[in-house]
């Protein structure tokens, strides 16, 4: 191999190295979700300045919305959140309700909603918004399979997010996962409220607790995948391991231990 070619190769290699390290630089910025196993799989938490995709079946739209809302709440606590949605998804899955958002512990004052007529303008708007560093996160909500959201569009969003440091969250309802440049990809399903314990039988009319998600991590660029049950704590504004009890239970009397509690302690 001639010297000139060698030197050209060396230059290219160093360029690639520089680009890669620049990308990694951003990836240090992670935010813990609160669920220890998930955070471990994510190497410390959800990466900022990247794109994360959340998929679900059509009827599970609200569940996935809740999860995305939770991610957005973790990613940013102060900065505005731009929520871009397609007109059609509002017809299918209902409109994002600010009262409901407030109930999850997020601040509706920080939400700016963009009502895009179609996928194309939604994509364009979110790419534009991801480049604006005043925002904390951008959510793009799409319904159904779309031709417009291909690898090129995905790469555009990723580049915009990397350059500005804004986190992009994609909510894809009634869509199948396809190759993309996303940092993580999730599949969301509804999870039951926890059943009652022996001391508190699961009566059909009993009260039930915080939002629960059956979360499957389908793709993780920097770690393993997996499937967990996650619960959203509205008061603390973070995720957590599923709690066994829907309601706070009175402490068991010290002199006469509850057999159910003992069993569980042994199992745990």
């Amino acid at each position, binding site marked *: 191999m001639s010297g000139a070619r060698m030197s050209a190769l060396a230059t290219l290699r160093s360029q690639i190295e520089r680009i890669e390290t620049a990308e990694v630089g951003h990836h240090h910025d992670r935010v813990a979700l609160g669920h220890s196993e998930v955070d471990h799989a994510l190497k410390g938490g959800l990466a900022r300045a990247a794109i994360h995709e959340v998929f679900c079946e059509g*009827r*599970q739209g*609200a*569940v996935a*919305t*809740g*999860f995305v*809302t939770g991610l957005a709440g973790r990613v940013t606590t102060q900065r*505005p959140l*731009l929520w871009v949605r397609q007109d059609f998804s*509002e017809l299918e*899955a*209902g*409109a*994002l*309700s*600010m*009262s*409901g*958002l*407030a*109930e*999850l*512990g997020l*601040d*509706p*004052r920080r*939400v*700016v*909603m*963009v*009502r895009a*007529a179609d996928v194309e*303008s939604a994509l*364009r*708007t979110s790419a*534009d*918004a991801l480049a*604006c*560093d*005043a*925002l904390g996160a951008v959510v793009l909500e799409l319904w159904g399979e779309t031709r417009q959201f291909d690898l090129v569009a995905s790469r555009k969003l990723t580049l915009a997010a990397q350059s500005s440091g804004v986190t992009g969250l994609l909510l894809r309802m009634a869509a199948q996962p396809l190759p993309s440049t996303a940092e993580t990809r999730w599949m969301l399903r*509804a*999870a*039951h*409220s926890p059943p009652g314990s022996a001391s508190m039988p699961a009566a*059909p*009319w*009993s*009260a*039930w*607790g*915080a*939002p*629960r*998600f*059956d979360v499957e991590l389908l793709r993780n660029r920097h770690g393993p995948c997996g499937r967990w049950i996650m619960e*959203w704590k*509205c*008061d603390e504004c973070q995720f957590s391991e599923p709690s066994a009890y829907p309601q706070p239970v009175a402490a068991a009397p010290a002199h006469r231990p509850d057999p159910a509690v003992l069993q569980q302690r042994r199992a745990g």
Partner: protein
Amino acid sequence: MIHALDEAAERLGLHIGQPLANARAMCPDLKVFDADVVADAKTLSDIADWCDRFTPLVALDPPHGLFLDITGCAHLFGGEAALLQTLVRALARQGFAVGAAIAGTSVCARTLTRQTPGVIVADGGEAAAIDRFPVSALGADETITTGLRRAGLKTIGDVASRNPSEITARFGARFSTLLAHALGQGDAPINPRKPLPDYIVEKRFAEPIATDTMIAMTLSRLADTLIASMEKQGKGARRLEAAFFRTDGVVRAIMVETGRPVTRSAVIDRLFRERLDALADPLDPGFGFDMVRLSASRTEIVVQEQRDLDAHVHDNDELAALIDRIAARIGGKRVVVHLPQDTHIPEQAVLAAPAQHHLAVAMQAEWPARAESEPPLRPLRLFDKPEPVTVPFATVPDGPPHQFTWRRAKHAVVRVEGPERIAMEWWRQDGKQLTRDYFRIEDAEGLRFWIFRDGLYEGEVFDADGKPAPPNWYVHGLFA
């Protein structure tokens, strides 16, 4: 009935208001078209648009007149005579029969246009110019015109020679004011179609421009000039309008609004680029534009904020700029912020308002605090219109359903909490609305619904015979 006619028909002795049968009798091969008042009004307003190139103050004088206030504009076109000639020739070339006159007052100019088009009357010469014309030329009511003629006052000069108080006593104050205005004594302001913009810059081209690059370049130069003139008075633009005058008379106006006063031409440039890019019916240059005008129709005094020290201010500015850009592209009503409303009806609890105008208010809004350590009581996704569900039966009359069908899928109810009773605001609605009992429901799959029964059981819903009917059930929202 004849609604309008051309010169040839007028020469034959036909007149407006004549029955069509009479006219046909006088002229058997008369060509007749149906009158289309709406299209006529549209054409008149199109012509008014075109006339914007001469002066920003153009007023409609229906059914087929226009007033142009050319005060201070005539010299731009080489004087009043040259302006009149340019205007009449250009309109005649477009196929309109046009008469025009210039005078010190609008009423006088209109009278002249009807009688001797093409005349220019200097200030003070109004009375002399019109005193030989018949009273009908004033354009007063038919009854007044007839009344004047009966009184033997055939020409405007005759009427003017009478004592004004007599005229007022006989024909009313409105007519005497009209007469005074026609004679050049005082003037009624015309009623321009558009409010006068605060700042206008425009560029005319000897050779029409048609390419996108030329249009963009022209706009950015105009933006520079506009910003320079606004800067002198410390103003920024909140609403901008670019008007493109096509050589064939069509005028296209494009408006851009901003949430904060704009003080940089690069911003104006970018907003218009976004807007032009996203137009559903793109700017069609046809044979080219011979004039482009940029005007700031709403401006505000710019308050200088200290930017460097306060990152928060910078962020808010950036956000406002982003909202402006998105709004320019997809429309201001499509970018919204949310304001809490003082009502407990779920679908009215939040108002979505355009972000451009309400961003600051929304950021300060007071939202009701959520109940600590309670699960969410309101759904995350709310249907605009509650969707009906079929409930086969409810075990307890007032209780929740055991299963229901929504969107053709059956859901078995596993957990329920409720009811939460929400009564409608009886003091607001005209019609009576039913009380709703809301239930939070979890089905076998873990999906959570917000379901309500519309109306109390055996209390509010009745069938045609007046007997109590089972109330309907609806899904109003979905919980996460």
